[in-house]
C-alpha cells in the first residue's frame, strides 16, 4: 500500500500558543515529528513542556484561545488542519484514538463498560447494537480481561483501575486506528498494574502495527517502551533520536540533566545507619485504623456493621535519626498510618513516642504535635491559598514558640534561606510559587518546630523528576543538620532505596515486612516484596536497553 511508505503522522513546523489577555503564551515552537507505521515515538518532558498540548493539537481538540501558525499536521495523506468538525468526528476513534492518564475520569461513571465500548463500534463501523456488543466482548477478551461477557455489564466503579485502563485501551484499539496517542497511560496506576498494562500495550502494538505517540514524564518507562524518543523542553524538541543512543549519549544539557535526576538505587544519598543499639524513638504497637462509624439506624435495627479497614495491627519501630521508607500500592494503608500518627485518624493500639504512651487524640499534647510533623503530597493543597507565606510559616512559631530574642519575621526569613528560597518570598501567596518551591515552604513549615520525627507522605510524587532530585537533596541536608527521624512514604522504590535505612512494605492495610535497604532485593524476601520489586523498571535500563 502506498500509505505504508508515507509516515502515519507527520507534523511540520508547527507552533501553538494560547491567547491570555492581550499576550500570547507560546506553548509549542516549530515542532517537527514523524511517526511511521508500527513505530512508537516517546515524547518526554516535564510538566509545562507542552506534551499534552501536542496531543490536543493532533486530536484537533484545542481550547478556543489557541493560536496556531501555518505548520502542517498530516495523518497519512489527510491534512488534519483542513478537516471540518464533522469530518474530524469521523476521524477520531476510527483513525486516531487516545488513551488518557486517568481511567477513572476517562470513562463515564453512569454508563456500563459495554455501552461505552459498543458505542465506538456502532459509530465508526456501522455495526448493529447486538453485533457491537458481541464484538465488544471479543475486544475485551483480547485485552486480557477475564470473563469479558460479565465485564460488559459492569459499571466503571465496579472494576479496578487496571481493568478500567484495559477497557480504555480496548476502546482505543477497537476500530484498528492508524495512530494512538497515549497520554501518561500508567501514571495513575500502581507499579504492578502499570507493568501489566505496559506488557499488554507492547503485545497489542506488535500485533496490530499501529503507530503510537507515547507521552510521559517517566524516562525509565519511555526507555522501555519506545524505540525513538523526542525530548521536549518548554515547547521545543531539544533532542530526538534512537532510544538507546539517546539515553547512552545524551547530547543536549537538558536531556543530560533529566537523565541525571532519575533516582538510582545504587547511588545512596544517606550516611551510615543510626546507632543500632539506641532505644527506638517511636514504637508503633498493634495500631489499627478502621474507617466509617456505626450509624444510629444500624444500632437501632441491630444490623451488623463492617468498617473499612485502613490498617491492621501495624507494629514497627523507628530509631532516632533513622529514615524509614514505607512502600506499597495505593490503598495499602501507607497514608492511613501517617494520619494515625499525626492525629488525623482515630486508631486502636499504642504509639509510644520517646517513652510516652499515646493511645488516642487526647494523648497528643503540644509536645507531641511539635515533635511529630507531617509534609503532604500536594503542596497546592497543603498550603492555604488565601494566606501569605509569612502567615503560613508564622503559625508553628506561634504555637510552639520559636527562638527567644529574635523577631518572628527574622526567624521565618532564616528558615526560607535554609530551604534555599529567597527571603523576599515572605510576602508572596502560594500561587505565586512553582510546585517545587511550594513543597519547600511545606518542608520549612515542618522544620520550624524543630521536630524529632518528620513524616513525608509522597512528598515528591507530584513533582517533576529534576525538582524531585533537588527536594530530596534538601531533605537529606536537613536530615544531617537536625538529626530528625523521617518516615518517608512513597511508591517510587528506586527513590526509597537511595535514601532509606530500612524499608517497610505494606499491602492492603497489613505490614508485610520491614527490612534493611541493602537486603530488599535479597531472594528470601516475602513473595509480595519480590513481586513489587520485579514490577519496577530499573533505571539501569536507561543505559542498558539493547
Amino acid at each position, binding site marked *: 500500500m502506498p500509505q505504508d511508505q508515507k509516515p502515519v503522522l507527520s507534523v511540520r513546523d508547527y507552533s501553538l500558543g494560547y491567547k491570555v*489577555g492581550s499576550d500570547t503564551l507560546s506553548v509549542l515552537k516549530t515542532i517537527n515529528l514523524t511517526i511511521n507505521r508500527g513505530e512508537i515515538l516517546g515524547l518526554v518532558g516535564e510538566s509545562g513542556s507542552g506534551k499534552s498540548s501536542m496531543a490536543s493539537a493532533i486530536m484537533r481538540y484545542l481550547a478556543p484561545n489557541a493560536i496556531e501558525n501555518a505548520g502542517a499536521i498530516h495523518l497519512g495523506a489527510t491534512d488534519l488542519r483542513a478537516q471540518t468538525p464533522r469530518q474530524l468526528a469521523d476521524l477520531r476513534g476510527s483513525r486516531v484514538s487516545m488513551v488518557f492518564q486517568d481511567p477513572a475520569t476517562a470513562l463515564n461513571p453512569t454508563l456500563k463498560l459495554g455501552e461505552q465500548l459498543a458505542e465506538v463500534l456502532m459509530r465508526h463501523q456501522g455495526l448493529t447494537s447486538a453485533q457491537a456488543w458481541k464484538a465488544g466482548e471479543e475486544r475485551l477478551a483480547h485485552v486480557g480481561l477475564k470473563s469479558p461477557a460479565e465485564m460488559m455489564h459492569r459499571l466503571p466503579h465496579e472494576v479496578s483501575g487496571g481493568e478500567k485502563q484495559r477497557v480504555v485501551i480496548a476502546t482505543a484499539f477497537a476500530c484498528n486506528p492508524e495512530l494512538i496517542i497515549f497520554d501518561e497511560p500508567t501514571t495513575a496506576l500502581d507499579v504492578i498494574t502499570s507493568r501489566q498494562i505496559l506488557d499488554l500495550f507492547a503485545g497489542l502494538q506488535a500485533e496490530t502495527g499501529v503507530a503510537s505517540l507515547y507521552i510521559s514524564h517517566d524516562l525509565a518507562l519511555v526507555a522501555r517502551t519506545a524505540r525513538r524518543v523526542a525530548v521536549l523542553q518548554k515547547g521545543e524538541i531539544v533532542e530526538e533520536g534512537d532510544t538507546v543512543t539517546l539515553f547512552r549519549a545524551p547530547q543536549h544539557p537538558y536531556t543530560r540533566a533529566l537523565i541525571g535526576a532519575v533516582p538510582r538505587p545504587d547511588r545512596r544519598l544517606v550516611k551510615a545507619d543510626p546507632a543500632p543499639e539506641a532505644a527506638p524513638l517511636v514504637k508503633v504497637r498493634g495500631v489499627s485504623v478502621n474507617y466509617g*462509624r456505626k450509624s444510629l439506624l444500624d444500632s437501632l435495627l441491630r444490623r451488623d456493621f463492617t468498617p473499612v479497614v485502613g490498617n491492621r495491627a501495624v507494629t514497627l519501630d523507628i530509631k532516632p535519626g533513622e529514615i524509614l521508607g514505607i512502600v506499597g500500592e495505593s490503598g495499602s494503608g501507607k497514608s492511613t498510618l501517617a*494520619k494515625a500518627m*499525626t*492525629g*488525623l485518624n482515630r486508631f486502636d493500639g499504642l504509639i509510644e513516642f520517646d517513652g510516652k504512651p499515646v493511645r488516642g487524640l487526647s494523648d*497528643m499534647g*503540644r509536645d507531641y*504535635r511539635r515533635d511529630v*510533623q*507531617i509534609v*503532604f*503530597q*500536594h503542596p497546592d*493543597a*497543603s*498550603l*492555604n*491559598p*488565601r*494566606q501569605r507565606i509569612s502567615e503560613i510559616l508564622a*503559625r*508553628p512559631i506561634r*504555637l510552639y514558640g520559636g527562638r527567644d530574642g529574635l523577631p518572628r519575621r527574622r526567624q521565618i526569613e532564616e528558615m526560607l534561606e535554609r530551604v534555599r528560597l529567597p527571603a523576599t518570598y515572605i510576602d508572596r501567596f502560594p500561587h505565586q510559587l512553582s510546585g517545587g518551591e511550594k513543597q519547600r515552604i*511545606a518542608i520549612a*513549615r515542618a522544620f520550624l518546630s524543630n521536630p524529632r520525627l518528620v513524616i513525608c507522605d509522597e512528598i515528591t510524587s507530584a513533582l517533576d523528576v529534576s525538582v524531585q532530585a533537588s527536594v530530596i537533596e534538601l531533605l537529606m541536608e536537613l536530615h544531617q543538620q537536625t538529626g530528625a527521624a523521617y518516615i518517608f512514604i512513597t511508591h517510587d522504590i528506586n527513590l526509597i532505596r537511595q535514601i532509606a535505612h530500612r524499608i517497610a512494605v505494606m499491602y492492603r492495610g497489613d505490614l508485610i515486612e520491614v527490612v534493611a535497604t541493602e537486603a530488599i532485593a535479597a531472594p528470601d524476601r516475602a513473595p509480595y516484596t519480590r513481586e513489587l520489586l520485579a514490577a519496577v523498571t530499573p533505571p539501569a535500563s536507561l543505559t542498558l536497553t539493547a
Partner: protein
Amino acid sequence: MTDFLRRLLATPQGLIGSLVVVLVLFAALTGAWLAPHDPDAMAALARYKAPGGDYLLGTDQYGRDILSRILSGARSTVTMALLATLLGTLLGAVVGTGSAYLGGRWDEAIMRTVDAVMAIPSLLMALLVVSLLGASGANALLAVAIAFMPGMARITRAVALTVRKQDYVSAAVARGEGSLYIVLREMLPNVIAPIVVEMTIRVSFAVMLFATLSFLGLGAQPPAADWGLMVSEARQYLHRSPWILIWPSVVIAITAIGFNLLGDGLRDALNPRT
C-alpha cells in the same frame, strides 16, 4: 483586582448588573440631596398628578413628589437589605463552616436543625420574628437576617465540606491548632467566593422581603419613604392614579434584577474556568 473587574465587566450580566447596582447605591448615598422636592412636603392642589412638568414621576395621594420619595427612600430600603443580608450571611457562613469542620454527629445535629428552620418559608419566618419582637425597622432587619441564615448555612457547608478535606486543614489539625482558628482563618477565607455570589443574589430577595414586610405594615411605618410602604399605601388609590403604585414597584424590580445580574456576573468572574 483590575483583572477581576475586567472579567466581571466582560459578561453582559456582569456589566448590566454592576451598572444598575452602582446606580442604586449612588441613589442610596446621595438621593436625599438629589431629590428635587421635600419628600414629605404635601401639596393639596397637586394630588394624583401624572408624570410630567414640575413632578417628573407625578405625585401621590397627598401631593408628595414620587421621584423625591423614591430617591430618599433608597437609603433606608437598600441599606436595610444590604445589612440584613450581610448579617444573615455572616451568621450562616460561620454555622455552615463550623458544622462542616466538626463533622460527624455534630454536623448531623446542626444540619437537621437548620433543615427544620428552613422548612418554614422565609417570609413566614420573618413575620413570626417581627410579630414577636414588634413592628419596627430594626426588628424587620433582624427578622430577614434570621430568615436567611439557614439557607446560607447549607450552601456554606456544602463548599466547606470540600475545603475540610484539603491538606492545609489537615496540616492545621496535625499542628494542634484550635477549632476557632481553623474555622475562621483556614476554612472561611476559602469558602468566601461562592458566599459572595450567593449574598449578592440574596440582596434582591431582601429588598423584596422588606418591601413585603412594609407592605404588610410590619416594617417601615408611615410616613417613611420606604419603597415597600409606598406600594402598600398606593394600593387604595390605584384607580385614581396608577403611577403611585407603578414607580416604586418598578424601582424594586430593577434593584432586584440588578443585584441578581451582578450575582450571576460575579459567579462567572470568580470561576474563570466555567
